């Protein structure tokens, strides 16, 4: 243990003496702190804006005045997707996902108003965030710090000297790897302190949605990532004949793992599991695919349904005319139409989600080649900034839409009997259900990404094991 501590101490002294590393580390801390503070600030602003929008939207719905309930169902409600606090650390693909869903009669809408559509082009630009620095810059810093870990000793001829003094190569590798990881964790201390302070200072009015647990799991993911990268750096440094070779090999590794493979993975997943074209997607819904009756002419389907509902109601209530029914016929028919259309929406949206899930699984497989993919998937899932967060929200919003429309149709069916065009009093809207949304539990997120976690653990363990094996087999020439 004492030897390992000595190695770690010596590494720290060497790095401290290297002016370039001091600058790099300083720059990295500054960048991390800035993006952490700004990310938190903008996340809190988004959370506040959403709360205000929900309040105003509720007001708008309640203040419709006297109106036909079905017209109110067409006016509908907007459901606003929440932003979780960990999004400040990892904005994931939040900018490319709609922030709100319009809940209206007859139609399940896609989430709209993607922040990326607004303002300056995203193109291939990156969004600065803590997660981006940790996923891209920190591994590069590890490469720069560690490429000469063992290869440098070999170049200088000190490796043989150290071994001659009785130092085992395994101990040297372990010491170097630990030193690198420790240095990075020390760099992260101020950032973690700031995040904890910001979390503690978060206004109590804001629902944190297990932010503490989410951040803890995210930290575990990043810890495994950093340990894994440190292990790879030590392995390659041991295998290389010179520090120069080690550096080139590590730079190629970094570019491949962090930049190249994630893009290839996304692209190939999209090619293997293409999403339906918008025209096909909406056409399938229009045809009623997945519903009991499929027809190229939806108006005909609706007309047939209307006739059957009329016949059923007249028979059930034993009357001869629609006007004599003890319920508002239009409302009952509209509700049946909603129920008849629902399976078509479930079918089309289900297919869409299945394709996205297949893409995720396909991407995750590339995690075998790149831990960055596994980490990104885990990190954005925990931050609530991945497509699952949108899907989960969309499902909840759709469930609410159906309840809301059924309640409005119900009010018209009950109170509008025998009145033709029924205008409900202004206080009707207060009796309608409100949308309350709870994001998925952390356990659900973790279980969805179990494979990614396993891959990250393997990425952390295998390089360590490999380093140990390489160290055992390496013969040092005097």
């Amino acid at each position, binding site marked *: 243990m004492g030897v390992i501590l000595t190695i770690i101490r010596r590494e720290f002294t060497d790095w401290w003496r290297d002016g370039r590393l001091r600058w790099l580390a300083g720059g990295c801390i500054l960048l991390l702190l800035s993006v952490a503070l700004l990310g938190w600030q903008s996340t809190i602003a988004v959370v506040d804006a959403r709360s205000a929008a929900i309040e105003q939207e509720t007001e708008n719905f309640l203040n419709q005045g006297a*109106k036909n309930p079905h017209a109110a169902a067409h006016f509908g409600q907007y459901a606003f997707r929440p932003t979780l606090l960990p999004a400040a650390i990892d904005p994931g693909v939040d900018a490319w996902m709609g922030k709100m869903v319009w809940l209206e009669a007859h139609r399940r809408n896609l989430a709209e108003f993607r922040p990326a559509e607004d303002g300056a082009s995203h193109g291939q630009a990156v969004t600065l965030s803590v997660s981006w620095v940790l996923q891209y810059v920190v591994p590069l810093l590890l490469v720069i710090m560690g490429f000469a870990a063992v290869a440098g000793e070999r170049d200088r001829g000190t490796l043989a000297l150290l071994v001659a003094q009785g130092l085992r190569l395994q101990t040297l590798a372990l010491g170097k790897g630990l030193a690198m990881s420790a240095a990075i964790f020390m760099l992260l201390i101020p950032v973690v302190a700031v995040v904890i302070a910001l979390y503690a200072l978060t206004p109590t009015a804001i629902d944190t949605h297990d932010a503490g647990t989410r951040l803890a799991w995210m930290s575990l993911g990043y810890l495994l990532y950093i340990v894994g990268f440190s292990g790879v750096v030590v392995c390659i440094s041991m295998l290389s004949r010179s520090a120069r070779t080690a550096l080139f090999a590590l730079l190629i590794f970094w570019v491949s793992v962090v930049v190249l493979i994630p893009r290839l993975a996304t692209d190939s997943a999209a090619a293997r599991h293409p999403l339906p*074209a918008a025209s096909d997607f909406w056409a399938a819904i229009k045809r009623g695919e997945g519903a009991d009756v499929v027809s190229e002419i939806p108006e005909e389907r609706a007309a047939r349904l209307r006739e059957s509902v009329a016949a059923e109601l007249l028979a059930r209530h034993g009357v001869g005319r629609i006007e004599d029914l003890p319920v508002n016929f239009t409302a009952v028919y509209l509700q049946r139409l909603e129920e008849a259309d629902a399976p078509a929406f479930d079918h089309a949206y289900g297919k869409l989600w299945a394709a996205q899930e297949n893409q995720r699984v396909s991407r995750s497989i590339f995690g075998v080649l790149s831990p960055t993919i596994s980490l990104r998937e885990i990190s954005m899932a925990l931050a609530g900034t991945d497509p699952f967060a949108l899907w989960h929200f969309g499902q909840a919003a759709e469930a609410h839409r159906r309840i809301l429309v059924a309640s409005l149709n119900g009010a018209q069916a009950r109170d509008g009997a025998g009145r033709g065009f029924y205008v409900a009093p202004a206080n009707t809207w207060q009796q309608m259900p409100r949308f309350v949304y709870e994001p998925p539990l952390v356990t659900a997120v973790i279980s969805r990404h179990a494979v990614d976690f396993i891959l990250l653990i393997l990425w952390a363990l295998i390089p360590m094991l490999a380093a140990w094996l390489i160290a055992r087999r390496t013969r040092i020439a005097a």
Partner: protein
Amino acid sequence: MVDRKTNKDRRLRTGLLKAELALLRHDRLFVIGSLFALLLALYATFGGMQWQGVRGVAHAEGVMRVAAAIQREATQLGAIESGELAISDAAAAGLPHVVGTEFALPPTAISGLAIGDAELRPTYASISATTRMHEMFRFQEVDNPVLLGWGRFDLAFVVIYLLPLLIAGFGCVALSADHESRVLQIVLSQPVSARRLATLRVILRGSVLVLATLLGLASGLLLGQADLTASVDHLAWFIAIILFYSVFWGAVALWIISFGRSSETNALMMVIVWAVIVLIAPAINTFIAREISPMPSRLEYIVATREAENAANRGGRELLQNYLLDHPELEAARSDAVSPFIKTFFLVQREVERVIEPIVARFAAAENAQERTRQALRWVSPRDLASESLLWSTGNSVVRFADFERQARDLRADWLRAVESAVVAGRRLTADEFSQLPRPEFREVARAEFFQRHASSVFVLLLFSIIVSFDAFRRLKKFSSA
């Protein structure tokens, strides 16, 4: 005497070139790197052509659909007016709230080479009297957010991210490796300067890598069966940007060499410079643009729209009465072809748009301000300059998308004006009125502006290259192989 010296110089240069080419041929790592560039460019180009093929077919189908709908509607209206067709046989013909059109942004023949925001920005608009303003772009492609966020593996990605790494990576150690093995001392004992040797080696390596990329591009275009007849100038600019961007990275490699450090230090410098130029600076630019010119909240926009809709709905009946008071001429033309609900809906939407106009204008102003800031910042970022120009060449620039949105909104405004009186009077359009309706046709940006944009980017990239090379040459003059 002078001739003899010139001949000797030429012979020396030729000899040096031959020797360097032979060295390159035997550099296995470099050969692998060049093949890698070729394969990546081929894969990216072919993938891009596939993507573009799907887009092109969808667009062509849309154009045919619009043409067929216009033809059908015009024929029906003509037949109704001449008495050949009864209204009951074509119930929806000429109804001003039913007729509509589609407006789509045409993809260029090389749009798959740099996809950029093409999957994010609206490229399709549906226009009719009953389509609300915020609904006109709702039938967008349904893409996976991860694909949008992480980006596609297109040729622009290869050119912007990977080609610089290869050029600067192989270039920055062009002298140091010989320096470390003491071969450089022997080479420089010949009448050749370190500056000339370094420049030659960087140019040779860069040229081979660029050629490999272009070969990949050409093969990808051939395999993808691209029809380039209408986009030759676009492709020429695309290639020109690749060349000038590569020249810049060659200059960076030369600049790194000029410090005379070891291969490790050079490689480290190279990767840090690459990360700063390609990753960090553009991210900071985007961040600054957003901070300096922030966008108003979309939530605020939607809430204001809803408030206005509520208010207008409550006064819907009055809106219709007021409109008819302002337009007494419509009273005589009144018919019941359009339901009162549609008439009110139409006027309510018109009122909503009038009320939220200042908010929409504020959005547009903020968006323009942000884009202006970003455009200004790109002059300090070679990566942004090159990326922007590649997107311009392929017709996927932000400016073109914004132009499309503006033209779509203008078309919608013209359309609503054209059908307004018929909707409120509740009557069908005549065949003549139908033929006068605005037709969708995307007007491309003027060629002069296209040229100016590219020329300025190329000029600034060249300026960056000259500045960096100048400093590199200055340092290389003092380069010592000792």
